[in-house]
């Protein structure tokens, strides 16, 4: 698990070390990083962007060799205007108002 969970300061992951020098599974590497996000941001549902299998479910159902990942959670944050607004900066139109177009 993340060693700096209590600290407010985020430490950069050394991806090269994790990938090429550790024996952690890819899921363990990702989970470690997610845990760190939780601790540093204090955003509870941040990790729901990454739908990971919890330990208890691994082995229960077969891991499937597939590219598509599970859909984001059906959280009501998607009904939240502030949450939707957080995507605006990704578009070339950010900075302009799109309201009143329709």
């Amino acid at each position: 698990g993340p060693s700096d969970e209590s600290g407010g300061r985020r430490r950069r992951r050394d991806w090269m070390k994790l990938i090429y020098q550790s024996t952690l599974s890819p899921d363990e590497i990702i989970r470690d990083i997610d845990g760190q996000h939780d601790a540093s941001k204090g955003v509870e549902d941040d990790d729901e962007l990454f739908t990971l299998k919890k330990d208890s479910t691994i082995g229960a159902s077969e891991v499937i060799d597939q590219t598509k990942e599970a859909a984001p959670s059906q959280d009501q944050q998607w009904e939240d205007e502030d949450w939707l607004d957080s995507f605006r900066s990704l578009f070339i139109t950010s900075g302009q108002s799109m309201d009143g177009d329709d």
Partner: protein
Amino acid sequence: MPSAVPFNSQPLVRFEGHDHFRNRLVLSILSGKPVRIDKIRSDDKDPGLRDYEASFLRLLEKLTNGSHVEISYTGTSVLFRPGVLSGGVVSHDCPLSRSIGYFLEAVVPLAPFSKQRLELTLMGITTDSKDLSADLIRTVTLPTLAPFGVSEGVELKIRKRGAAPGGGGEVQFVCPVVKQLQTLNFVEPGKIKRIRGIAHSVRVSPQFSNRMIEAARGVLNRFIPDIYLYSDVFKGEESGRSPGYALSLIAESSTDAFHCAEAVSSPGTTPEDVALEATRSLLTEMKRGGCVDRQHQCLVLLYMVLGSEDVGRCRMGELSPRAIQHLRDIRAFFGTIFKISPAEPMDRENTELLLSCVGVGYVNANRTLA
């Protein structure tokens, strides 16, 4: 310099488990190194290869000359000695346990290195929830190859659609050969300038496509005016054996970065549910950033390795678990190690990465000079 011609003296690369089966066989063919995979579901009550994995091995035999496959009596071990990619006219009936995308995802990176232009017809399920659909392969996977110099004459035609479980779809993938890949230098993700989409429905009311489009627009219209969602209705013979519908969405950036998402109907869902799932997945994917779609990280990493003997660079969102394993497998076959660093070292909230490697200068030695 690695050659596409296999030598019997090449060392055997060994793995355990059924996961990453296709990627490992693709790496074996491209590197010319034989691969042995053991413990394939050895603890499962139904041990060994699944029918789609055996079918994938048969497809590889059709696409190559001189490949040699040995499967143990229990099906839990496979030894694959790669032959030479031959290309040509190939046809394959995909089992209904996996969609056409399962097969195409692995054929796409191989095809340009064939001896002859590949004309591959695949029959089966064209869209499902596990593999990239024929639509996403056509609109995202193939354009993803363009910066590597693989674009002219590459096409995927969806002749018939086939939803799960019955399938009945058919696609044709055409890919000319290339001599060598161009070095990738893709570090500017840009901003999303437009969204495209394909809403398709087979053996259900054609209104379902329009309902998906309406629901997706309900979310996306606030962000950008340049949205075109196409309603693609296949009828009669061309609509396969089972009812189904799906929405595929593609976001294109000002620097030609693509991000995509898709949702597929399942029992109990409405067209609106499917549209919202696809839309939310697309926004989630876009937020991860980078210059390539998360579902195409493995493909881009592989092609960076095969590039000319120069430093290829690409900015990606946080790596998927599959991409992490792929990086390890790439090292096992090609010895290539990527340099991975934060894309924005000063911005601690940013999770994007800059990946770079020196290409192995892979040359298509099979290619027939026309």
